[in-house]
């Protein structure tokens, strides 16, 4: 029978470093999934996964046995991913950054909206969706991803983002409003 996560954590804290590899194996796919959805970049997501498990190991003594290791490491990963997004944004702001103007992207998408075919429309939705997501703040985007794509509750989002539940709810609300506004042209055009 496979040992549960808590038993493995105890083994690691008792000096069996290699046992941590089992935890990494069990949870790395989940952590990668959320890291990729938040960062939007494969290499960054891989880096976030490494960083999250490294931090997890270093803070393992503070892991409380009443919570689940999977939830705990997921929370660390969300935090690392959010830091990564903010860092990238800062780096982009330090460079020129003209090519990522969301207004420009929206204009380009509107020009391509003429085709009535379903495939074209679907591609248009994807492009517009990506542009709309990019227009959100890092916190709004992360809160929305956790709510809409990762099925996390407001409490879980609040805890992952280290904000109050009401602030998490507001972040999702603002994200939905902005996204709906950005996607409105598609609803009007048949």
């Amino acid at each position, binding site marked *: 029978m496979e040992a549960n996560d808590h038993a493995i954590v105890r083994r690691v804290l008792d000096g069996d470093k290699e046992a941590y590899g089992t935890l990494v194996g069990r949870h790395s796919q989940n952590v990668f999934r959320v890291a990729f959805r938040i960062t939007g970049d494969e290499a960054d997501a891989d880096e976030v996964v490494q960083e999250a*498990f490294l931090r997890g190991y270093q803070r393992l003594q503070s892991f409380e046995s009443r919570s689940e290791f999977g939830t705990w490491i997921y929370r660390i990963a969300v935090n690392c991913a959010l830091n990564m997004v903010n860092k990238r944004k800062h780096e982009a702001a330090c460079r020129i950054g003209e090519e990522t103007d969301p207004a420009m992207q929206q204009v380009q998408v509107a020009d391509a909206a003429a085709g009535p075919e379903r495939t074209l429309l679907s591609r248009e939705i994807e492009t517009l969706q990506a542009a709309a997501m990019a227009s959100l703040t890092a916190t709004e985007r992360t809160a929305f991803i956790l709510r809409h794509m990762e099925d996390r509750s407001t409490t879980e989002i609040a805890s992952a983002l280290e904000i109050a539940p009401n602030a998490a709810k507001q972040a999702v*609300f603002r994200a939905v409003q902005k996204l*709906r506004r950005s996607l409105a042209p598609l*609803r009007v055009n048949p």
Partner: protein
Amino acid sequence: MNHISEEHLIDYYYGEAESPAAISEHLEACSDCAQSYELMRRDLEDIKPIAVPQRDSAYGSEVWGSIRGLVPSYEKARKISPWNWFRLNWSIAAAAMACLLLVAAFFAGRKWEHRNGTTIANATNEQQGRQRVVLLVLGDHLDRSERLLVELKHAEPSTEGPLQAEARDLLSANRLYRESVKQQDPALASALDHLERVLIEVSNEPAGLSQAKLDELQKEMNTDGLLFEVRVLRSRVQEDANQKRGAADARKGVSIL
């Protein structure tokens, strides 16, 4: 009739409304709200989850392989001090020293090769990637420590301890960092050692932080000097991380061409 706000409709859509039965009832009775909800539902259903690239079953092992070398064993970190170990096992210690010299010679050789441009790019990338992760994590640790020291500088005497909780949290990580940089970076290790003593003092004060304790920390442990030291180190670590990133980006460019 009062209409339902968009915020409540969003809660309802995600199954988090406080009274879902009342909202369902209202939506049946109010065509305006029902239409608003239907439009919102369609908009949200149009937003499909971001497709995630596949990672194979060996991914976990690869991740573990990339961080295994960076983390010391908990038992070793807690129980065996290197000095005692050397005193008790001097013959093994001598053999270990010989091995260390061998490893040092090996790495010196590799470094020399690297300077001559013969190092394999992939191996370097992997190592650089690891170093970047370490620098990022270390930078974050120094950032948190700096914040704690600033808060400590302006702290009012208190019996409750958010500062103490933060200090306890930083303490275990600090020990691991100090251990791992001891050989490569004595200046950083010494600063982390100083920081550790302050963190121990802050976290082990059972009755909270009195004015006398705060003054004592400031005078006897020179927390202001430590704050400056941490700031300098943080910017140095940040620079190192940026350099590593710049080097990695440059290599990426070359390999594409």
